[in-house]
Structures are given as structure tokens and as C-alpha cells.
């Protein structure tokens, strides 16, 4: 049996929930593949993995995977994940969110989960648009681009998700495109294994909404754009800000050891019991 078939049988609810809801050519499927390959490489038991999502195209991911899966309310995935993780720290909790989900309605929860540095992995599918509702502009839609609620053009500045996560205090932050799926596998694996709040910003495409409204071509054209514009962080360090304009800096942006909430809370328990 080929490796990918074995993984499908091992990790997907392949006999229950397929076909999936995503459009043909969507990058979410590439991320789904990366996610299960990364989890497989970590060697964790399926029983110990909890996948939590919010609402939107990204929110539908958990239903397809054979873990403990939780599809929550819009923007709130990290709050549910906080409860799961603190109630049972032995679980490995991974949240899947979209750009609108994590940055707009869930922006507050995102910065505070990072600030607490709770041991949860946050994977954000950034496709620069609200896809499921029909292509409205999101907090990551670049200035000047079109959307169904910005038919003239968007006049808002796009959020830099990874940079926000670094500032907010996450232990680990990385960014990768779905075009570089192999690199995405290893980035997600590192994020899952990292203790503390880890963020993986996944640059993906929505050719159905964002691509169509902005005449960016097919899914393949948009993947090629990712290939041509991704710059590894090591290379970016030697480039001028002008040369970096419009580029996607990929790789590990930060990997640091900061106090982890659960470990700090164990100290509080000891204090409360008069042990220290």
C-alpha cells in the first residue's frame, strides 16, 4: 500500500465524511495532508490529539480527521482549546483557524492565547478573504484588492499575522505556503513538538473568491504566484525592504523559550497547597 493511502486509512474519516466541502483546487486539502503527515511524524497517539476549529472553510477541517475533534463558534477556537488544554495538559491541542476567524472576530483571543503562552498549536489558513460566505474582504486582504464587500477596492491595511504573534509573545512562529507542502510538513511538526504557544501561518489561495474577483487566474496560477514570491527568512535577512515588497517571508520567524502557562500554573498549585 502506498504511504499516502496508508496515512489516509490511518488518519482520515475516509469512509464517513468524504467527499469534503472544499472547492476543487483549494489549498485547504494540501494543509490537511501536511497536518496528518506532521502528526504522523510526531508519533503521538490519535487519542491524545485534539483538533479545534472555528467557523469558515477552515472550520470544516476537523470533521475529516480521526482525532478528538471540536468545531466551535466563529473566532473562539482558541478559547475552547484553552479549556481543553488546561483541563487535561497531557492532550496535544491543535487549532485550525482562518484569517477572518483568527484575526477579526477572534483577534482578541489570539493575542491573549499568545500572551499567556499556553501550550497549544495554532494553524492559520490565510487566504486573504472570507471564502465560505462568498468573498468578503478580511483583515488580511491587501490594500487595493477587490472583494464582494469592497467592489471598488479595499482601503484597509492587511494584518501581518505572524508578526503579530511574535509581538504578542508566542514561543514559536512560522510561515509557509501550501505550494511548499514538504516544508509545511516539517514546520507544522516543529510547531506541534514545541512547548508553548506556536503559530503556523499557512499562505493559501482562494481562487474561487479572491482569485476570481481579482483576476488572478486558476488555482495553479495562484500556486505559481506563491512559488515565485516566497522568500526564505534567511534570504530575506539580506534583502532590502524595497526588494521585499509584496514578498512572503517563509520559515521559522521565532523559536524561543518563554514561561509556559501550564508550568507556571503548577507552581501556583504548589503555593496554594502551602508546599512552597
Amino acid at each position, binding site marked *: 500500500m502506498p504511504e499516502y493511502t496508508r496515512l489516509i486509512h490511518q488518519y482520515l474519516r475516509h469512509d*464517513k*465524511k468524504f467527499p469534503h466541502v472544499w472547492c476543487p483546487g483549494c489549498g485547504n486539502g494540501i494543509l490537511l495532508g501536511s497536518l496528518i503527515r506532521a502528526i504522523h511524524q510526531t508519533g503521538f497517539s*490519535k*487519542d*491524545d490529539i*485534539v483538533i*479545534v476549529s472555528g467557523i469558515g472553510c477552515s472550520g470544516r477541517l*476537523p*470533521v475529516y480527521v*480521526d*482525532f*478528538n*475533534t*471540536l*468545531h*466551535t*463558534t466563529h473566532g*473562539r477556537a*482558541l*478559547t*475552547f*482549546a*484553552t*479549556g*481543553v*488544554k*488546561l*483541563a*487535561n495538559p*497531557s*492532550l496535544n491541542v491543535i487549532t485550525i483557524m482562518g484569517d477572518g476567524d483568527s484575526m477579526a472576530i477572534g483577534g*482578541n*483571543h489570539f493575542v*491573549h492565547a499568545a500572551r499567556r503562552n499556553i501550550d497549544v498549536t495554532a494553524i492559520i489558513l490565510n487566504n486573504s478573504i472570507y471564502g465560505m460566505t462568498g468573498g468578503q474582504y478580511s483583515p488580511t486582504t491587501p490594500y487595493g484588492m477587490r472583494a464582494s464587500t469592497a467592489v471598488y477596492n479595499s482601503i484597509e491595511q492587511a494584518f501581518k499575522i505572524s508578526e503579530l504573534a511574535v509581538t504578542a509573545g508566542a514561543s514559536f512562529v512560522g510561515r509557509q505556503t501550501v505550494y511548499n507542502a514538504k516544508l509545511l510538513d516539517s514546520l507544522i511538526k516543529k510547531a506541534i513538538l514545541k512547548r508553548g504557544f506556536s503559530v503556523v501561518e499557512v499562505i493559501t489561495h482562494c481562487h474561487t473568491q479572491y482569485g476570481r474577483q481579482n483576476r488572478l487566474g486558476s488555482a495553479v496560477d495562484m500556486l505559481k504566484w506563491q512559488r515565485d514570491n516566497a522568500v526564505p527568512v534567511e534570504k530575506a535577512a539580506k534583502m532590502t525592504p524595497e526588494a521585499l515588497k509584496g514578498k512572503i517571508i517563509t520559515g521559522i520567524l521565532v523559536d524561543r523559550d518563554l514561561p509556559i502557562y501550564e508550568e507556571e*500554573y503548577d507552581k*501556583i*498549585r504548589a*503555593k*496554594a*497547597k502551602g508546599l512552597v
Partner: protein
Amino acid sequence: MAKKDFRLLQGNEAIVEGAIAAGCRFFAGYPITPATEIAEGMSVKMPAVDGTFVQMEDEIGSMGAIIGASLAGVKSMTATSGPGFSLMQENIGFACITEVPCVIANIMRGGPSTGLPTNPSQSDLMQARWGTHGDHPIIVLAPHSVEECFSVTVKAFNLSERYRVPVILTADEVVAHMREKVELPPVESLEIIDRVHPTVPPDWYIPYEDNSLGVPPMPAFGDGYRYHVTGLVHDVRGFPTSRPDEVDSLIRRLHRKIDKGLDYIQEGESFLMDDAEVAIIAYSSVARSAKQAAILARENGQKVGVFRPITLWPFMRKAIEEILKNVRAVIVPEMNMGQYSREVKRVDQGYARIITLNRVDGQVITPDDIIRKLKEIY
């Protein structure tokens, strides 16, 4: 005999004690008057019992966190007041449809909006019932003393575990902030109910399969029963569906499990009701004034009794219908514009005269206020 555990406690403090006795080991909250003492108490006590306290960034997050903790197998609660309760409503609906046990204490202050943060009110009665969107049953309990803040909190956890529902524990600011001497019962003497865990092998587990109680067994994340939890309407396996027959049976089961349990869920106190000609129906702190008013009225030869619903929702229709049939008149004093009295009127088939007494000035309803109303009858 073990030494009795007498304490001078505030209502909010008794809620903390009751929750811990009931097995609560996770609290997430956000500061808000007049409920803050519950969070403060939990921050001290939770770590000492190997539980967890977390102060979230808002009440939306608090509600999400307690649902997550409950799914991980830990009894959980949050506490808030009107404005924060409004923020929690979306996720309360999530707990309703996913059938996640949890307890929400709502200490009522005056509203709408920021309103009267430090004054009592009973104006969240309908928010507790209908605050979240969609068709859903809800259990709302109202203690009227510090002692009951303990025992009713235990009951709230028991009902939430038994029926897999969020339970709202609601008290007005007076009950939450007053101090009384209470005797805390030994934990061993309490009836503590835990959610039913599946006993079938994981492969056979059907997460939302109907049974005689209408309440499916619930595993914790990590137990080996890997299942899907979604706020979408789901089939018995937990997967999203929009098939009319599957949608219908889920929504009806959510209602049926509460309807079938009414006798178990509903609890009220009758005070001097045996020969009463006039009944005062009151809850939370107003019930205390009502009892005093009944005692004073009887000194004047007026046969007045009090019925106090502890279970505010589901509405105690049977008990109240019975009262209406046996008295001349009913007074419903409330610190709102008539939220409970409207429900009493709904079940009245011309049995008795219903008199409302409403205070919305942020002040308590006194026994004198009720005595004055009695003059309209006698």
C-alpha cells in the same frame, strides 16, 4: 459525631464552596460586579484542590474555555453579571446543541447595558431563558439564602451532569452579597451526580444516540472515544447534517430530555401555603421579604402564604396552576417590570386575580411594599 462546619459566608463565597463540593475543578471568568467574588474565591481555592482557574480576556472566552474543559472531562463553571452574560450567550447555545455540561452563575444587577452595577435586580430572568438564539430548553435555578447558594450550586452541577446541559444559577445582588451563618454539610453526605461515561468499546460508540433518558453517555477527550463535536446540527454520529428527519429528531430530543425530567428538575418551597387565601410568588431575595410579609399579614388575620420557585426555568407550570386554583389572589413581586408574573398570567385560566408589584429603582422590595399591596385585596 464530626464537628459541624459553621461559617459566616457571603452568597458568592457559598457558591464557590458549593461548586467545589460538587466536583467543579475548572473555572474561567472575567471580573464584573457583583459577581467578582466568585472569580476571586475560585482563584484561591481551585489550585489548592488541583483544579484550574484562568482569567480570560472576556466573557466570550470564559464560556468557550469552560466548554472546552468540560469536554476534556472536568466539571467547569463561570460567573458573571448582565453585560457579561450577554456576551456568553452565543457559546451557551453551543453548549446546548453539543450537550456539554457546565454551570453559569449570573448575579443580577440593574440593566439594560451597564445599568446599575452595584444594585440588585431580577431583570435577567428572560435573558437566562431566551438569551441564546434558537429553540432550546434551559435550566435556571435561583437560591434565596447563603445556605442555598451552596446547595443550589450543587444541584446546578448535578442537573448539568445528569442532563448534559448548561445550567444557569441566578441570584440577585442581595443574595450574592449578604452574609449569613451557614452550616456546610460534609461532602460525603451530598448526592453528587457525574455524567454517564460510555461503556461500549470505542468502535461501537454512537455519540448522540437516543436512549430512555434522552441523554447519551459522554466520554472525555483522550479517553479513546474519538468523536466529533460541532455546533452544526448533527446526526447521531456527531457529523453535520441538514437531513430534515435528522435535524428534527435532534432538536426534539434536546427538548424531550428536559420535558421528561421536569419532576426531577423542578423544585420549589411552599411557606404557610396550606390554608392560604392569598399567595405571594417570589424568588431570590424578594422571597425573603415575601415570607416576612406573610408572617406579618397573618398577625392581622390575613391568610397569606408564599410559593418560592427555586427552579425558575423550565417554568413550574403544574405547581403554579395548582396554587392559582386554590387561592383568591396571587401577588408576584419582582425587581423587574414583570418577567415572571407574565408567565404566571400565561397559565392562569381565570382561576385567581394576579397582582403585580414591580420595583425597578435598584432598591429591594421590602415586606412593607408587599403589605401595602395586600391592602388591594383585603
